[in-house]
Structures are given as structure tokens and as C-alpha cells.
């Protein structure tokens, strides 16, 4: 669950703060996860190098998508990322030997780091560290001139350019950065259950991520976190009522959020604490 919050924070920066609609966040999560697993266990690359290469791959793919889209209207990016997400799943399914096809890859173990085997509660610590690191990085960016530039680009790109902001570059950097963060989260994810398979990285979850951020309150870190936690726990609470169809509830919540309270749950909280 903490990983979802991590992802939500990153996505919130891209969508809520930079105003870029993207469906590929989970694809990068997957690219990170699969890269590290394939590099480690099929190509036998040492762990530190595998991590670096995994990040590099994410960065390259992100640049390929972001650079051409940056010059076009926002929805072109949305489409390109949608296509990327679907394409990624197709590649995974058809990847045969390399990606383990539809079944994915399983039963590997994280190699020892500095002689330590990280398992169980120790690994949870890693996840928490990742979450905190992501939060701090994003928060620092948010409060810096870069964060302001992102918001300016989101609100009014023409005015932003007139103030000296290189709109295309800002968009590309934001996209690449958040995608790389998602990739790193993916790498951490790979060792949680020690299995990776295609369905997790598809468009479904990308929609859910978007919904989470909107329901929680886009543009605010706390909002993203609340949205993530809520949407993660909701299925468990709702199971007795609607079984597997919790996605329906998410859809309704999201629609309600957009129609009624675009600032999300965080907006409601703000109103009460005033």
C-alpha cells in the first residue's frame, strides 16, 4: 500500500502540479520492475549497476515520449502515454522467454546487499525510506522555482513563456523525473512479492491512480496520499457489499469529485479546518 502512496505522490506532481495528463505512470513502474529483474537474473548484472541501468532505461523512454509531446497540446501526451501503457503490456505478454509472457517472472530473490539479506520487516523499512525520500524530493521541488514554473505551465502556458519559462523543457523534465521515480518504485516493488506479471502494469491501474489523485485532491501531496490510502482500503471495506466491483465505486467517487468538489477530499478538509 505504501508503494501506491509513493506512486500517487509522484503522479500528483505530474498531474496536479504540472497539469500533465499521463497514463503511463504504471508503465514506468513496470519498466523499472521488469528491468531490474531481467538485468539481475537473466543478464546477471550486479545490483548497483542494474539499478542505474533501470533508471536510465526509464529516463530514455520518458524522453522519447515527452520530447515530441511537449510541443503539442496536452492531450497528445495523454494519448501517447495511453498508447505506451498498452504497448508495454502487449510487449510483456508477447515477450516470451525474456519477460515470462503472461505469467510473468517469479521466484527470484533479492541478492544480498553488503552481506545483508533484506527480508520482511527490513524490506518494509526500504519501502518506507523510498516513500519518505520521494516525498521530500517532491516537496522540495514543489516549493522551488521549478515547482512554481510547473504550476505556471499548468495554469497558463502562454503567460508562463512570456515570463521566461521554457514550457517544453519544464514539461519534459517533470515527466521524466516523475517517471523515473515511478521506475524506482517499481524496482522496489519487484522484491515485495518476488514476482512480476503483466496485469498490474496496465491501463486499469493507471486510471485508478488518476482517480485517486483527483478524489484525494490534485495538486496537494496530502491529497494524493489520502486518495491513495482511501482507494487502497476501500475495496476491503466494500467487499461485503459489492464484491469485486469496487472499481464502480471508484468511478462514481471520481465523477462526484469532478462535478462537485474538484479540490478533492483535501478541499473538504480545508474547509472544515478553517
Amino acid at each position, binding site marked *: 500500500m505504501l508503494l501506491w502512496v509513493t506512486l500517487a505522490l509522484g503522479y500528483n506532481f505530474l498531474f496536479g502540479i504540472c497539469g500533465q495528463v499521463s497514463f503511463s505512470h504504471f508503465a514506468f513502474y513496470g519498466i523499472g520492475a521488469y528491468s531490474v529483474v531481467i538485468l539481475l537474473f537473466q543478464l546477471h548484472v550486479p545490483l548497483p549497476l542494474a539499478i542505474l541501468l533501470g533508471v536510465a532505461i526509464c529516463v530514455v523512454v520518458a524522453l522519447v515520449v515527452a520530447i515530441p509531446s511537449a510541443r503539442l497540446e496536452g492531450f497528445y501526451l495523454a494519448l501517447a502515454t495511453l498508447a505506451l501503457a498498452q504497448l508495454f503490456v502487449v510487449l510483456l505478454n508477447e515477450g516470451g522467454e525474456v519477460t515470462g509472457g503472461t505469467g510473468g517472472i517469479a521466484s527470484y530473490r533479492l541478492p544480498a546487499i553488503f552481506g545483508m539479506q533484506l527480508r520482511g520487516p527490513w524490506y518494509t523499512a526500504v519501502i518506507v525510506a523510498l516513500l519518505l525520500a520521494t516525498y521530500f524530493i517532491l516537496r522540495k521541488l514543489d516549493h522551488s522555482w521549478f515547482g*512554481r514554473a510547473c*504550476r505556471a505551465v499548468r*495554469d*497558463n502556458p502562454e*503567460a508562463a513563456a512570456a*515570463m521566461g*519559462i521554457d514550457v517544453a523543457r519544464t514539461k519534459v523534465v517533470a515527466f521524466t523525473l516523475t517517471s523515473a521515480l515511478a521506475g524506482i518504485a517499481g524496482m522496489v516493488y519487484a522484491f515485495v512479492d518476488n514476482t512480476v506479471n503483466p496485469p498490474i502494469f496496465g491501463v486499469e491501474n493507471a486510471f485508478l491512480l488518476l482517480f485517486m489523485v483527483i478524489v484525494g485532491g490534485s*495538486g496537494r501531496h496530502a491529497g494524493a496520499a489520502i486518495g491513495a490510502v482511501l482507494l487502497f482500503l476501500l475495496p476491503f471495506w466494500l467487499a461485503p457489499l459489492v464484491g469485486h466491483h469496487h472499481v464502480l465505486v471508484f468511478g462514481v467517487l471520481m465523477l462526484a469529485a469532478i462535478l462537485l468538489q474538484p479540490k478533492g477530499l483535501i478541499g473538504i478538509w480545508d474547509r472544515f479546518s478553517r
Partner: protein
Amino acid sequence: MGSILEVRNLSKRFGGLTAVSELDFEVREGEILGMIGPNGAGKSTTFNLIAGAYPASSGEVFFKREPILGLPPHQIARRGILRTFQHNRPFQGMSVLDNVLVGAHRLFNRNTRDEETARRVRAQELIEFVGLGDLAQADVGTLSFGQGRLLEIARALAGEPRLILFDEPAAGLAPAELERLAEIIRGIAARGIAVLLIEHDMHFLLPLAHRVVVLNFGAKIADGLPDEIRRNPAVMDAYLGSHAPHP
């Protein structure tokens, strides 16, 4: 005082239509140059050419002796030319203070806490200079039209421009607001910043500008002091039927 902006032989054609034709003028530091002309005279096009919105068909524009024609808007801004928009364009998701801070974007180079604080203080000063003092933390959605206009100005000033371009700043303002606007613009020029002001409203512009350039059908038809322009028959002809100037 030297020229900071020189426009030479500037022309712009859109398909078969010549919007601007062989325009020549300059703006000096600390000077308010007004550009007037009837609707369709080419003022906005000229403005947009200088601001980098689209490329020119021919001609040159020099800023601080360096050619800038054809550069994209953000690079023009980086060199020290900032502008306001005729239809206010605030950043809606941010407070007034943050809006002004974005204006200072070109000045940020090291992301230190001190720099940020210093810029905030400066931004607050500017907000007070334009008369929006108490509204620094307000959401821009709550501003009136006139206040939004003042925000545009504060934002453009935040970047410490050497040249500021005003796009019909008087449009839509009430008389009291116009007074304030004129005061602010004079204050800006007094600081040594060059001002290029395009305006439709002669009553506002002529008392304010140091020099005036008059356009009609894309070409310059007069260039001189406001009093000369007032008496210039060609100018009166151009405006006849739409907006006759007071003698």
C-alpha cells in the same frame, strides 16, 4: 539616454495580407513610447513580433544591440523584455504573491532558501507599488478586472525588465483606475525602464507618452512628440470616423 530597442524595416505578411510594413522606430531607456493607430493598424502584430509570438517576414529587431527577431517568447523574456496581456492572464491556481514570483523566473538561478526569501520580499514590495498591498495571499480568482490588470503589471515588473511591453493596458478600466495606471507607468519609466505602450485610447496615451508612433494599415504614418501628433492632419484622417482626437 540610449536606445534599448531598435526596430528596423519590420514587415509581416499573413498570406496575402500585409499586417506590418517596413516599420522603423526605437525606444529609449526611461522613455514611454506610445504606439497608437486605429483598429487593424498593425499595433498588436508589431507587439507580438517583438514578444516572439510568431516570426516576421522581414526586418530586424535589436535589443541592447543584439538581434532578437525570431527568438521564442521565453528567450525574449529571459533577455529582459517582459510584457502584460490585454486580456489578463493570471495563473489561476496560485495566489497573487506566487503569480508575481513567477514573473521573477528569469532571475532565479540558484535554488537557495535565501534567494527565495529575498525574491518574496521584493515581490511583496512590487505588490504594494501597484496598490494591491493587502491582497498578496489572495486567490487570483477573487480579483476584480482592474486588480487583475495591476497584477499583470506587478508580475511583469518582478523580472526586473529593461523593457516592458504593455498591451492595451487601459482597456476596460474605470477612470480612477486609469489615473492609477498612468501613475504606475510613469513610476516605471522613472526607474529607467523603457516602456512600449500600445493603446487604442488616445485620451489616455497622449498625456502619458514621451514620444508617439502612429500606425495605419501596417505602416508608420507619424512619429514625434504627443503635441505634434495631436495636430498632425494625417493622424486625424486615420482616426476619422472612429476616434477623433481632441485638439
